[in-house]
């Protein structure tokens, strides 16, 4: 019985050693949040988690972090490790979203947009965002993240490499692959909708 087994395991190994991370500040969940909440928040969006689901998926990430933090041995940057968690949680979220047959919807224009742009510009912006969102949804998640960081958020490639714990050349090759996937996805969507050219 699992409960009994847990008790036996607990009694047998009351002080099982756990790897300790390198930071001076103890690695507890709230400390990880304080240090890297923004990184997790942005990473999830870059991995395709949309606003309505962001809070819940963010919480899922921290539940996983809480369960697995003891496995972080400091051999990589914490952001690299966190990105791995985000990637897996976002992938599970994507599968659920696909299962529900959700498709991205046009975002509402924000107040600043609405007041400073003409209606035709607003419409074009909405269509462009929707199109990009749909194309991005067809990218592999790791490539998607690199694409969004580099092309949309304009993060320098060296910084991306540092965050993800990969060589800069890997960032470039992922970006190259992501661009190909993005263009192919865009062409497929436009062929499907019968819409050509820019919105």
């Amino acid at each position, binding site marked *: *019985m*699992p*409960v*009994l087994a*847990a*008790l036996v395991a*607990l009694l047998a190994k009351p002080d099982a050693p756990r790897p300790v991370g390198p930071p001076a500040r103890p690695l*507890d*969940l*709230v400390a990880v*949040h*304080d240090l890297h*909440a*923004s990184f997790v*928040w*942005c990473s999830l*969006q*870059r991995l395709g988690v949309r*606003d309505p689901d962001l*809070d*819940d998926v*963010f*919480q*899922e990430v*921290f*539940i996983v972090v*809480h369960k697995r933090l003891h496995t972080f041995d400091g051999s990589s940057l914490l952001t690299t490790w966190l990105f791995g968690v985000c990637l897996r949680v976002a992938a599970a979220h994507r599968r*659920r979203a696909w*299962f*529900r047959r959700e498709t991205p919807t046009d*975002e509402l224009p924000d107040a600043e947009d609405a007041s400073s742009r003409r209606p035709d510009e607003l419409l*074009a*912006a909405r269509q*462009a*965002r929707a*199109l*990009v969102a749909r194309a991005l949804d067809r990218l592999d998640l790791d490539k998607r993240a690199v694409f*969004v960081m*580099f*092309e*949309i*958020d*304009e993060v320098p*490639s060296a910084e991306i490499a540092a965050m993800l714990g990969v060589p800069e*050349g890997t960032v*470039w*090759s992922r*970006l*190259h692959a992501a*661009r190909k996937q*993005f*263009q192919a996805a*865009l062409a497929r969507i436009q062929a499907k909708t019968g819409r050509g*050219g*820019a*919105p």
Partner: protein
Amino acid sequence: MTRPTRWRDDGPDEVRDLLRYTAKTRDLGPRDRARTRARVARIAAGAAVVGGLSLLQSAALGAGLAVLTLVGVEVGTTWRASPAPSAGQSPSASASSSRSSATSVQLATASPLASGAASSLPALPLPNDMAPPRSSARHAGSAPLADDATEPPPRAPDSLAEEAALLERARGALASSPGEALARTEEHAARFPSGKLGMERELVAIDALRRLGRRAEARARAESLLGRAHGGLYEPRLRQLLDGLR
């Protein structure tokens, strides 16, 4: 490979136009940060409670098993001492009486650890729509059977250990026989109408209904539970179940 330049600057025309309209990733604002920090702190605190609960459940279960072992020894002794049923009493009734007697004696001496552990457990949120006390087989069958009137009244075996064991069986049956899992949860509701693991039972029941294809029932039950689980330990699991039901 040469250092790439951004498509916004010199990419294909069509893509450049699209990217020009695309908003950057939204950073975490102070309000979002405060809200998420509170939730994360709850996860950390909640996990400690759950960890404590598991430990106490385990201790209670361990104590319950120890009791059962002692009972087994005692029953053997009792049977050896008085093998013949009394007149007018069926052999099975006599054996039952002897067993119950032995059980009550052993539980009276061995259960303080278990009951103490149970009483120190944090109260878990219980669903409001929890079934009202039904006719409980355990209560009906647990009338004092001790043959000595001076003996302390029989104490119920550790209920938390029983609850945990019953739900463990229900959970174990989920994959292979969701119908049986559901029946176990109903048994749990009948036997422990005010049990400490009511919320856990509801989650198992919802999962069982989902696996049985009774999705509407499962969804209604999950949505009803969600309001009461809000901000609690079970909310993420409940939301996950609901996600699968939509």
